[in-house]
Structures are given as C-alpha cells and as structure tokens.
C-alpha cells in the first residue's frame, strides 16, 4: 500500500478496491506459507481464507465499522484470518456483524439475478455511473433505455427479496 493510509481507506469507501487486490497479489504466497506452517492449511484453502479475510476487511470499511486504517495492515489482516479460523467461519461467509443476515440475504438474491442485471446495478449503485455512461458500457441505445433497465433490475431484485 504505497498511498497514505487515510487515503487508502477513503478510496476503499468510494469503491476503489485496487489497494486490496494489490495486497492480495503481493501477499498470497507468503500468507499461504504462514497458514501452512501455523495451521497446516493447503495452498488453495489458504488462498480462499485470504480472499474471505480481505472481503471482511472491505465490508468493515464499506459499512463504517472500520474508521481508522490499521498502521500495520498485514498484521491486521493476519489477525482477522486467525479470528476466522478460531471462530470456524465457513468459507465465503463474512464475520458475524450487525445486519449481516439481511445483507447476506440480499447478496444471495443479487447473485440470482442475470449477469446483465448484476452488471447494471453494479455500475449504477457501486461504480456510480450515470445512465448515459452506463448505457454506453452496456451497449444500450440511450440513457432512457439504461434507466428503464436499471428500474427493471431493481424491481426484479426486490421481488426476489420479498
């Protein structure tokens, strides 16, 4: 993480995940060796554990549970991984947190949507694209079509949630 810590946190909050992806790329090998030595985890399981831990970290930043960037991110992430292992959290499940159940339900339904709908909602609600830019990315003829598509997808998701 070459950017200042506070800036990294801000970037994560606005959806720039590059710092975490870079961290994964840099640390995957060392993390797997650490997990193998300490917990006898095979490399693929260690890789999954690191991915889940980074997702937990991202969630903590995104929903405001983490307001101060840890001075030693590596030690913080390794500690979170140890907590996951100690709590026997199943793979691809985040740590217990407030509203986790509701969000997990929404996430599950979100994944039920078609690829196009997932993409449209991601562009609008996560990337913050306006309808014109989203239409261009998705190959829609104009912004109105993009807006209708977004509305339809949101309604589909809502129907799945009910």
């Amino acid at each position, binding site marked *: 993480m070459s950017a200042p810590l506070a800036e990294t946190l801000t970037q994560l909050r606005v959806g720039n995940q590059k710092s975490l992806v870079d961290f994964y790329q840099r640390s995957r090998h060392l993390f797997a060796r650490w997990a193998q030595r300490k917990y006898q985890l095979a490399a693929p399981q260690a890789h999954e554990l690191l991915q889940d831990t980074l997702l937990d970290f991202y969630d903590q930043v995104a929903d405001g549970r983490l307001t101060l960037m840890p001075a030693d991110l590596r030690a913080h992430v390794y500690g979170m991984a140890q907590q996951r292992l100690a709590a026997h959290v199943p793979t691809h499940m985040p740590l217990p947190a407030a509203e986790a*159940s509701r969000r997990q339900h929404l996430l599950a339904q*979100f994944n039920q949507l078609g690829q196009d709908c997932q993409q449209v909602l991601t562009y609008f609600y996560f990337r913050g694209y306006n309808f014109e830019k989203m239409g261009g990315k998705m190959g829609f003829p104009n912004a109105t079509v993009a807006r209708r598509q977004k509305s339809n997808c*949101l309604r589909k998701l809502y129907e799945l949630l009910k």
Partner: protein
Amino acid sequence: MSPLTPSPDLRPYIDELERFADGQMTPEEQEAFELRLEQEDALAEAHATYEQLTADLRWAAGHNTLRQRLQSLDERMNERGDALARAQSLAKARQRRVALLSSLGAVVLVIAAAAAWYFTRPSPARPDRNWEAYYQPDPGPAVTTGLLHTRPLLSEALDQYQAGHYPAALHSLGRVSPTSVGADTLLYLRGLILLRQGQGNAAQLYLRRVGEQDSSSELARRARYHLGMAYWQARELTQARAELGTVAADSLNPYRASARQAIAAGVLQAE
C-alpha cells in the same frame, strides 16, 4: 425486507422513490415529494426502507465485485504458477536428457577408443595376414652413369620403377630390346613392376617364365620368391605356400629369411 424483521412494501411507492433518489424529478415534483415525505408516515417509512435497500445493494455489488476480482486474480496467479512449474519441469527434463546423452556419448567414446586400441595393437597372437607385411621388395639394379650411357631406356625404366611410377616404368620397359638386356631380366623386371602395381595375376605370367632356361640362376631364385608373393597377392594361397616353401628351403636364395618368416607365421594355411 429482512427475512427476520417485517418491512413495509415498497411496491406502491417504488416508482416515485426511484425517480426521487435518481434525480429524475422536476424541481416542482421534488419539492412536492419532499413535502409528502414529511407528512405521510407510510411514505417516509417506505423511503427509509428504499434507502436501506440501495445501501445494501451498494454493499452487495462492491462485495461481489471484490470477490470476483480476487478470484480472477487467484486463477491468473495459479495459471502463471502452473506455467512456471511446467517450464521448470521441462528445463529439468532437458538437462537430464543432455546429461544422459553426454554420459552415453562418453561411454561410446570410451568403447570406441578401447576397440580401436584392441584392433590396432601389435599382437603376437594375431599375425599380420597381409602379403605386404612379409614382402621384401627388390629395388632392382642401381642406375649408374655407366648404365645410363650403355642402356638409357633400361635406366629410365628402372628410375621410374624406383620412383614408384609403375605404369610409366612398364611403358619404358616395353621399349627396351631383349637382345640388349636379356629376356629373363626383362621378364623379371616386368613381373616386379606388375607385382608392385597390385596386379598379382599378371605378374605371375612373367615371373613364372624367368629361369625357364636355367632354373638355378640367381635371377630365377629371386623370381621364385616374387612369384610366391604374386600368388599370395592374388590370394592363391596354396601355390603361394608351395613357392615360398621352396624359397625357404633354398639356402642360396637371397629371400630365404623373408620366405621362412611368412611360412612360420602360418598365415598361408587358411585365410
């Protein structure tokens, strides 16, 4: 909304809520909607639920995006690792192959060297079977000034013979008159030259005729030895053995020692 806690149904309001949240209302519509939000509890509750839904959706989309990016990166890193491992394994296999071939080459080289030494080493147990190994050549009479003056053609032929120019020597010898040199001498020299030229069969014809008049002459004795060698050269071993046996038994023959050596080697028994 939540599977655990009941939440108001958004469907009656969702169009308005969405237009409001997405900034699609005119300023007048927006003002009116904001007023309704303050006055209608059901709408305010639906609005809060909608905000929670979109916030959760923002989180879910971000979470999903990060998960997909990490998984995709993981797959790329795995592929790169596999490719590296494959390349290393190929390099190791190549090194092993080169080492094996080098070892094989070294072994073949050692065997070849040993075989070369074995077949070329001088061995008393394996006498040389080639006639040339036993042959004692006759250089013929020396070309002196006197001979050059008295018999220039003979001198020329002898000179060419001694220089190893056998076809030229035969040609020159053909011009020499038998009356000036002697028939036996010519026959003898012709036989010698043909023998050195590798024409054992032709040499026999001339060497056999030497000494037809006087078989005990010095020239006839010499001719007998070369005749034996001509037989050997033509691979007529029985005649060669007989002829060289005669030479070996003749105490006056100047080639007796050479003939005895060939007989004693036993190489004429069965080649």
